[in-house]
C-alpha cells in the first residue's frame, strides 16, 4: 500500500481533470480505453498509477451510464474488475499465506498488459510505415518472365504397340467378313444387258454365251443366270425374244424376235 502513496497527488490531479468525452466508439475495447486514459497521466507506463487509472475508468463508465449510453459487456466486466482491484489496493493487504494474489501484483499485471499493447501498437505503426511494395517501391513493370519450355518426351511401351497393332488388325479382319456383301444382279441390270445383246443376235444362241462377260466368278454366275432367266421370261411374254431348252439342265437358247418376222405363237417358245 505504501508504494501507492507517492501517487496520491497525481490521483487527485487526474481526478480533477475535466470529464472525458463519453464516446466509446473511438475505442477498440476496454484495454484500448484504459491505455488512452493511462496516456493522460503523461508518465511512463511502468510508473503508472493503477489506482488513478481505475478511478478514471470507473468515472468514465459512470458518465456513460449517466447519459444512458449502451456499453458493451466487456467494458462492464473490466469496470467490475477494476472496482475490485481498487478496493484491494485501498484495503490493507491480507495475510501473506493467503491464496489470493497480492494487489500490487495484479496492478503490475494490468500495467504490463497496457505496456504490451502500447508496444505492439508502436511496432504496428513502424511496420505499416515501411516502404511497401506497390505503394512505395515497385517491381519491374513489364518483366519478360522466365519461360520453361516443356519439351514432350513421348512414352509408349512395346506392349502398347503390339496390342494396338493386333487390336486393329483383328478388328479390320472381322469387319471385312461381316461387311462383305453378296454381289446380286438385279432384274433391271439383267434386262438391260439382255436387251442390248439380243438386238445384234438373231440366231439361236445359248444364254451363257450372252453372259460370258459377266460370268466371272462362281458367285456372280449364279446371280447373273438367275436374274437373266427371269428377265428373259418377261421379255418373252412381251414378244421381244424367244427361248428354248432342249432338256432339263441343258443350255437355254435365246434369240431375238426381229420386227418383220411374224410373231411365233407363244407356245412354241415354251
Amino acid at each position, binding site marked *: 500500500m505504501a508504494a501507492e502513496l507517492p501517487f496520491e497527488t497525481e490521483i487527485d490531479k487526474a481526478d480533477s481533470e475535466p470529464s472525458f468525452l463519453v464516446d466509446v466508439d473511438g475505442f477498440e475495447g476496454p484495454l484500448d480505453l484504459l491505455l488512452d486514459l493511462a496516456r493522460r497521466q503523461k508518465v511512463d507506463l511502468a510508473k503508472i498509477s493503477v489506482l488513478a487509472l481505475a478511478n478514471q475508468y470507473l468515472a468514465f463508465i459512470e458518465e456513460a451510464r449517466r447519459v444512458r449510453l449502451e456499453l458493451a459487456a466487456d467494458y462492464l466486466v473490466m469496470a467490475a474488475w477494476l472496482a475490485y482491484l481498487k478496493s484491494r489496493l485501498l484495503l490493507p493487504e491480507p495475510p501473506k499465506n493467503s491464496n489470493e494474489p497480492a494487489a500490487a501484483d495484479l496492478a503490475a499485471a494490468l500495467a504490463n498488459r497496457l505496456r504490451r499493447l502500447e508496444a505492439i501498437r508502436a*511496432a504496428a505503426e513502424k511496420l505499416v510505415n*515501411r516502404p511497401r511494395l506497390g*505503394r*512505395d517501391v515497385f517491381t519491374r513493370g513489364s518483366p519478360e518472365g522466365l519461360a520453361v519450355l516443356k519439351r514432350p518426351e513421348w512414352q509408349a511401351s512395346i506392349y502398347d504397340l503390339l496390342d494396338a497393332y493386333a487390336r486393329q488388325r483383328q478388328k479390320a479382319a472381322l469387319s471385312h467378313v461381316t461387311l462383305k456383301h453378296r454381289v446380286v444382279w438385279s432384274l433391271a441390270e439383267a434386262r438391260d444387258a439382255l436387251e442390248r445383246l439380243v438386238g445384234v443376235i438373231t440366231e439361236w444362241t445359248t444364254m451363257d454365251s450372252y453372259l460370258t462377260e459377266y460370268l466371272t466368278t462362281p458367285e456372280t454366275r449364279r446371280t447373273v443366270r438367275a436374274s437373266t432367266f427371269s428377265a428373259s421370261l418377261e421379255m418373252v411374254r412381251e414378244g421381244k425374244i424367244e427361248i428354248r431348252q432342249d432338256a432339263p439342265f441343258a443350255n437355254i437358247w435365246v434369240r431375238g424376235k426381229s420386227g418383220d418376222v411374224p410373231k411365233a405363237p407363244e407356245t412354241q417358245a415354251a
Partner: protein
Amino acid sequence: MAETARLAFAEETNAEAIKADQLREACRMAEALLFAASDPLDESDIAKRLPDGVRVTDVLQSLRGQYEQRGINLVKVNKKWTFRTAADLSWLLSRESNEQKKLSRAATETLAIIAYHQPVTRAEIEDIRGVAISRGSLDVLMEAGWIRLRGRRKAPGRPVTYGTTDTFLLHFNLESIGDLPGLDELKSAGMFDGRLPPGFGVPTPKDDAALAEDEDPLEGGEEADLFEELGPVGPSDASEAA
C-alpha cells in the same frame, strides 16, 4: 629464381583476371534473370542457370553492391532475390491508380501481433488487444496473402496458429522476419509476461515452414475448411476491415 617468381606472379594475376571476368559475366546473367523474372527468384534457381565454378552468393552480393546506390536495388527476401525501385524514390513513382486500401486499425494491429508473436493463436491475439478480433480483419490479411494458418497449438481445444508468409516479407520489404522493425525494443522492454502462456514471453518471431515444438500440423485439406469455418463475413466486419 626471379624469373620463376615473375612467371608465377603473372600466372596468378592471369587467373585472377579470368576469375573476375567470370564473375562479371555471371553477374550479367544473374542480372538478366532477375530483371526478367516476374517473381523473386530462389538462390538455387539462379545458381542452376549460372555457369559452373561461380558461387551464386558471391554473384548476388556483388550485384547487390553494384546496385546499392542506384535507382533500383537488389533485395533479398527469405533467400529469394528481386529487383525493386529504391525506397527513397517512392515520391516519384506513387501511382494513384494503384492506391492500396488502407488497412483498418484492427487489421494493422492483428497483423503486427501475428508478425511479432508468431506462431500465435486467435485467443492470444485477442488477449493482447483486449478485444475480440473480427472475422473481417483476418479475412483481409488472409486475402492479401500476408498471413497463413500454420498448424494447431498443442493445447486444450487445439487452437489454430497463425503466422506470416513470404508475401508479407516481400510487401513490407523485410529480408527476414528477424528484420521486423522495433523488435529489439519489444524484446528489451520484456513486457511479454502478463497472462500469456509460458514460452510465449520471448518474442522471437518464427515464420519457418517447420512447426514449433508446441504446434501440430493441420490435417490435409484442413486449411481451406478452417478458413471457411470462421463463418461468413458480416457487413459490420467488412466495414471494419475496409
